């Protein structure tokens, strides 16, 4: 009788092959990320000293109003960004503030916030289309800044 | 499954390289070249022809299985002889059924009667036929205990140092030295009869 390499029961073999075929769909994939990055200013004043800054879009402003105490939110910077799979990219959100994003295995990303060149904060978190990531803090004159990262698409 | 003529012209390292890739014909040539040496080494250790043949077969099968581990640090002949020695020594260990050695063995280990033997002033004999001398040596070696015979084989035939022998025989260097000493004394005594017979 010939020796067989595989000695598992036949159904387990069929199951294994079925799972193997579906693994690419089941498992987290390496992905190119398409993002929107906002720098937002929160204030209780209706207008900012610098008139060039527009009010933030209504949907996003409403979300922030429900969470935070400030009444008015202004869009300082908005950019579309793309981070390739397993790559790191740095984005300038203002003269003093940079955001560096690394696409990691699984749904996780690493976000580093730099203020005036210094690392302020490092966060590793899953980023999904269902949930935005906001890094925020208070500033002078009872205002606040918000860096909002929104995942648009994974390829 | 006859030997291809071209293999007989190749060196050992070339044959080993081919055998590593699964060329059984190359391996067959290696077997043909070194089987007698392997058999001889095993026979001097185990003293039994049938056992030596079975162990020789085991040596070659293990060699085939471990070929990938052979990096060429030594010659193939040296490497396979080491495998043969290990297998021979393992066999001897398995054969040692007695947990407590007999008094005779204890005496032999410590030198016993050989300690009291006068020194044999024997010179290598001239005029004796080489084959006859070899046969006498073989008979004398068979009269030694396993440990004494093994230590002589490893030192005189394999050219191993004391510490290498100690590692193979799983004993101390001191034990190797005393076994070698008493083995030589006994051998000299057994071979002294040669001189007295012929002169």
């Amino acid at each position, binding site marked *: 009788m*010939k*020796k*067989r*390499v*595989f000695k598992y029961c036949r*159904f387990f073999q*069929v*199951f294994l092959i079925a799972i193997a075929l*579906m693994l690419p*769909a*089941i498992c987290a994939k390496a992905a190119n990320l398409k993002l929107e990055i906002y720098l937002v200013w929160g204030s209780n004043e209706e207008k900012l000293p610098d008139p060039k800054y527009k009010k933030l879009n209504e949907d996003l402003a409403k979300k922030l109003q*429900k*969470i*935070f*105490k400030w009444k008015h939110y202004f869009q300082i910077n908005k950019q579309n960004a793309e981070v390739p799979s397993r790559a790191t990219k740095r984005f300038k959100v203002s003269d003093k503030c940079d955001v560096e994003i690394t696409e990691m295995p699984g*749904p*996780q990303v690493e976000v580093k*916030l730099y203020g005036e060149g210094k*690392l*302020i*904060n*490092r*966060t590793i*978190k*899953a980023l999904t289309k269902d*949930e935005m*990531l*906001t*890094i*925020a*803090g208070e500033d002078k004159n009872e205002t*606040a800044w918000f860096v909002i990262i929104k995942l648009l698409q994974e390829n | *499954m006859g030997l291809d003529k071209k293999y007989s012209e190749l060196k050992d390292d070339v044959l080993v390289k081919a055998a590593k890739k699964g060329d*059984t014909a190359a391996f*067959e040539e290696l*077997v043909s070249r070194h089987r*007698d040496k392997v*058999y001889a080494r095993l026979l001097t250790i185990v003293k039994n022809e049938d056992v030596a*043949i079975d162990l020789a*077969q085991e040596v070659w*099968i293990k060699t*085939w*299985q471990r070929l990938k581990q052979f990096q060429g640090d030594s010659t193939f002949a040296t490497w396979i002889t080491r495998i043969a020695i290990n297998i021979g020594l393992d066999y001897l260990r398995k054969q040692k059924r007695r947990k407590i050695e007999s008094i005779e063995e204890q005496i032999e280990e410590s030198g016993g009667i050989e*300690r009291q033997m006068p*020194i*044999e002033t*024997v010179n290598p004999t001239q005029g004796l036929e*080489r084959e006859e001398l*070899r046969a006498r*040596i073989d008979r004398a*070696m068979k009269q030694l205990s396993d440990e004494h015979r093994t230590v002589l084989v490893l030192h*005189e035939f394999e050219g191993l*140092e*004391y510490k290498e022998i100690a590692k193979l025989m799983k004993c101390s260097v001191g034990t190797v*030295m005393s076994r070698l*000493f008493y083995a*030589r004394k006994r*051998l*000299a005594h057994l*071979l002294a009869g040669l001189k007295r017979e012929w002169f």
Partner: protein
Amino acid sequence: MMTLEQQLKIQAYVDGELSRAEAKKVEALIAADPEARGLYEELKFAATVLREHEPEFKMPVSQELFWNRIYEQIKQSEPEPIPVLDYLKYLVGVVFSRKNWVPVTATFIASVGIFLLKDVIKPIEDYLVVVETPSDEVGSYSFRAQSEKMFVLWIYNKENVGGEGATKVEPTNIEDEILMQ
């Protein structure tokens, strides 16, 4: 009468296992003591006669017979690989065999179930958050505002701790609890 230690030293000298200093001592002993010289000659003879007359033995089995035995053992110990095509045909036979319809259907349903549930059963890494705030002057805390689908990381100046809170919404769920960084 020599001690055993002296005798073993002479042997080690014969075998070249002594250091130069020790070898010189033994040479002096051999030169001075006839008993030592006699032992040296005896041991040298035993070593030499063996080395020069190693018994030679020919295997009393023909090469063909010996090789056949080895070859059979080698082949038996190696598992026979199944050609991939044969294996696939075998599996197809298993899947489409009538008598196997129950386990095959169960396997298929289990596989589809795992596929469909992959989005429902979130892997644990989706919930893991790592936050580092290297500066001594600032701290951070985080919370999840589930209704607004937002994860917030709030950075504050440690000098200002105790002031009016920035957030309107206090985290209500244990999962949304914050760790002061």
